[in-house]
């Protein structure tokens, strides 16, 4: 589904991502792991287009070269993004927040698909409240719901469980699994919490100081690797 080759990224003069190579097969979930500040979010932003890359390529399965596309075009290729820190539109109501995602839907739907509300009942309850007034966890749910509105083929989740109550976290995991199985959704997940990652991801990639240190299927994630790259 997604193929990243020799990706290099700079913030000004500081080299943040170094020669990254990654491949995610369709319908699978890749979990990107690593300590704080190693470049996980930066990588997600590069895929989404919020940060420009210095060199390398990011290709979709249909052959589209993402690095040549603008952010809007990328989302039109079916990439949904749940950024770190939620990034909901604070002064839009919950419903309006969700409606922003309708623009790119191919079917021209004008209303919010009911299943989003089924997934996150709290959003329906708070439909007319401003996004910024929600509690942290509610905002996170809104961010996920909003990304699902565009019916993505590839979903980028940057620490999606942050701030969400345990039972809903589990539920989100289930939903993502189901979407992967039923609709062939591909997922890139950034997650620090091992149990969650282990449960829902198919493979992992560990980042350290902007480099990929290990990447394999999830069951190969050893305590040794964890100690080496995830412990302080």
């Amino acid at each position: 589904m997604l193929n990243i080759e020799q990706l290099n990224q700079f913030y000004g003069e500081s080299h943040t991502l170094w020669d990254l190579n990654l491949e995610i097969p369709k319908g699978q979930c890749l979990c990107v792991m690593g300590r704080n500040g190693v470049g996980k979010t930066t990588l997600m932003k590069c895929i989404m287009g919020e940060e420009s890359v210095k060199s390398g390529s990011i290709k979709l399965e249909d052959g589209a070269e993402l690095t040549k596309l603008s952010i809007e075009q990328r989302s039109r290729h079916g990439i949904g993004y749940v950024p770190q820190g939620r990034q909901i539109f604070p002064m839009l109501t919950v419903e309006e927040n969700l409606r922003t995602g309708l623009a790119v839907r191919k079917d021209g739907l004008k209303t919010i698909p009911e299943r989003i509300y089924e997934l996150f009942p709290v959003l329906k309850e708070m439909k007319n409240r401003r996004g910024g007034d929600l509690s942290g966890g509610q905002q996170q749910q809104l961010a996920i719901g909003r990304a699902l509105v565009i019916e993505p083929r590839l979903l980028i989740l940057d620490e999606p469980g942050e701030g969400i109550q345990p039972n809903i976290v589990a539920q989100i995991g289930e939903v993502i699994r189901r979407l992967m199985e039923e609709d062939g959704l591909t997922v890139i997940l950034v997650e620090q919490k091992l149990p969650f990652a282990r449960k829902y991801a198919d493979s992992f990639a560990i980042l350290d100081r902007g480099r990929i240190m290990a990447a394999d299927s999830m069951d190969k994630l050893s305590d040794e690797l964890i100690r080496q790259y995830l412990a302080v």
Partner: protein
Amino acid sequence: MNLMTELTRRDRVFDFLAPTQSPVDVRHGPILYLEGVSVSFDGFKAINNLNLTIDDGELRCIIGPNGAGKTTMMDIITGKTTPDEGSVWFGSRHNLLTMNEPEIATLGIGRKFQKPTVFEALTVFENLELSMAADKRVLPSLRSRLAGEHYDRIDEVLAIIGLKALETRQAGILSHGQKQWLEIGMLLMQKPRLLLVDEPVAGMTEQEMERTAELLTGLAGKQSVVVVEHDMGFVRSIARNVTVLHQGSVLAEGSMDQVSADPEVIKVYLGEDD
């Protein structure tokens, strides 16, 4: 190296973390006392007749579903939100409802926000410097100069939060997790009597969580700590007393085991398989 060993000792409270003298009167027991507090936003009751008492030196975990009112409660304590009714006392002398944010902060209540907020244009060092317990009035700030012990203190905190290398970087470019740590650092610099910590471990790895747990338990005793967190593993590792909020009032209170066995709590919050 010396510092590292010191940091790993759980039993001892570092003296730079010892609270400053605050005029709080805790002779009669609790340091924080909320009674019958309610607040509503456009008719929505976010806090509903909430009663809560935190003892001096206690470490209390507060859990509860999203939107239960945990953050709002902290807003009320720190003076950001004024409740519609109820009373909030700090010790037995200070009615927090009559005070504004800086007064409350000066009294010795420090807070870490759910969404990390740091001073983005200032460096990491400056963020800590500003947070340091000191005379925060205008003219003293103008004249303020850092002495050796101040530097030491900042260095120690920098070491704890692991941002020594980024000391001179602007806080705005930090990653999400680094900002979380910086906020914890700022909280530590204030040396408050009461720490309100909203989701301290979101976005941290397991190991970092452990470190945070140590830090918080280390603080308890001299300082009182209120932690809000959704990570049950973390809560379990530090909690002695847990309060469960639901729809703006207390649903359950007790030890972690008691609480997590409560069917109501499982239903609204934990989920069956946890």
